[in-house]
């Protein structure tokens, strides 16, 4: 992966001037490269990782991982039905996977009730959906490479040879 992408993936706040400093590059060239990545859709979005366990409980969300069995459509395979599913705003992630079911859908909602209603009223009754199994998420330990726990400060001594 290009170094610019690697740096931004680690910290999206890194400014082009800083990336230029780190990579012995020219700031204008870095800016240009980032623009190109954005235009090509290589860079889709800049996000912040928030540990929602630590924010007020009324803002907390419920997540469920749903195994979905579907009947693929002629000529379109799984893509069309996947699109119909992931277009719902309740769907946070959607993956086509190998194994005993076809799609793994991550659904987010205010509470168990909203998630259940989505599964019962929207997802399960869709044409081509043969069945679903819902797993409510109880605790998140790590997400996208980030451990969701404040780590203790590094205990190095402040000065050494």
């Amino acid at each position: 992966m290009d170094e610019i992408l690697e740096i931004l993936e680690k910290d999206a706040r890194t400014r082009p001037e800083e990336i230029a400093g780190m990579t012995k590059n020219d700031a204008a060239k870095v800016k240009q490269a980032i623009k190109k990545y954005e235009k090509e859709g290589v860079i889709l979005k800049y996000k912040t990782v928030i540990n929602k366990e630590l924010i007020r409980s009324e803002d907390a969300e419920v997540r469920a991982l749903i195994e979905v069995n579907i009947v693929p459509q002629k000529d379109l395979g799984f893509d069309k039905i996947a699109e119909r599913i992931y277009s719902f705003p309740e769907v946070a992630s959607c993956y086509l996977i190998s194994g005993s079911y076809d799609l793994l859908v991550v659904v987010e909602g205010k509470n168990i009730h909203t998630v259940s209603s989505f599964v019962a009223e929207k997802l399960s009754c869709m044409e081509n959906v043969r069945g679903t199994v819902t797993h409510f998420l109880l605790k998140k330990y790590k997400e996208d490479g980030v451990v969701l726990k404040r780590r203790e400060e590094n205990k190095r001594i402040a000065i050494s040879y």
Partner: protein
Amino acid sequence: MSDIISKKVEKIQPSGIRAFFDLVLGMEDVISLGVGEPDFVTPWQIREAGIYSLEQGFTSYTSNKGLYKLRLSIANHLKNRYGLEYNPDDEILITVGVSEGLDLALRSIINPGDKIVIPTPCYVSYGPVTELAGGIPVYVNTKDYGFKLTPRLLEKSIDKRTKAVVLNYPANPTGISYTRKELGELNKIILKHKILCLSDEIYAELAYDFTHTPFASLHQARNNTIYLDGFSKSYAMTGWRVGFACGPREIIAAMTKIHQYTIMCVPITSQMAACEALHTGKKDIEEMKREYQRRREYLLRGLGSLGLTCVRPAGAFYLFTCIDKAGLNDMEFARRLLKEQKVAVVPGSAFGNGFDNYIRISYTSNFDNLKEAIERIAVFLRKL
């Protein structure tokens, strides 16, 4: 007290910057660019291997020389990486870091009054450990030669009492390193005068600009080189205290003799973890190395924009920075920077005489800290 403490120990001067270190340790919220160890935590699978070894009940002594499987892994690693061949039976000794390895090497070869050539600036222990072993350190200031020992400087510093030269590359505190050609030239002098080379290559895996050449891999160098390396810097394992020394059988046997009576063996947990590091740690080294490289470029540019210059380091994680522009000596610079802007650096005089217009800056800190530190140094310089 003077009757109680040995003359040899009493003669060793306590470091002049100890008081400054105490000052740093007593202050809160300091951004420290003065740390001589990685900011990364030991990669998980290595820590996990240590934990697992404890769970399995590996809590005993090991062979004095160290676990055979670790010595074998080191032998394989050196062969695959550098084409260097050492017999794990009697040419490799596991030590408590390079520090112990160097101490053992010096104590094994020095007779009272023997001289050891030490290019400066250098890591703080080389001189005192030489003196404790009964030797005489011959310091060679390399400032005017890009902080590198040249064949001429080396030859000029050798006389009939010279026993060895200590090399360290990539170097602490300058980050300089030597190309194969440069090392070859030094080796010619070493061979000509039949002295030993004690080669501290603890930063070997952190060589950024050109491939690292172990001194022992040079033509005819193996028999008069003691190769010292370890896991501390490359695998972020400073606290585990595992290093190794490789060399001719007779020297390793002599070093093992001292080691067995003083240390017995390196803790088994650390040795087990080091085995894991050699087997699975390559990817982690690469990742950390890339990060250090970026920080190096960033700081070189940042310091340069403030008019602070340093020799471009080819490895390790230090910038030996000239502070002439500030018009202060190193101690004053470091003390005031700490008090006024809460940024800690190490005064250059810690690394030898004649470096009081230098400070050592470590880039073992994350980008947020480095950015903040550069801003604070800029404010500090403006207010001078």
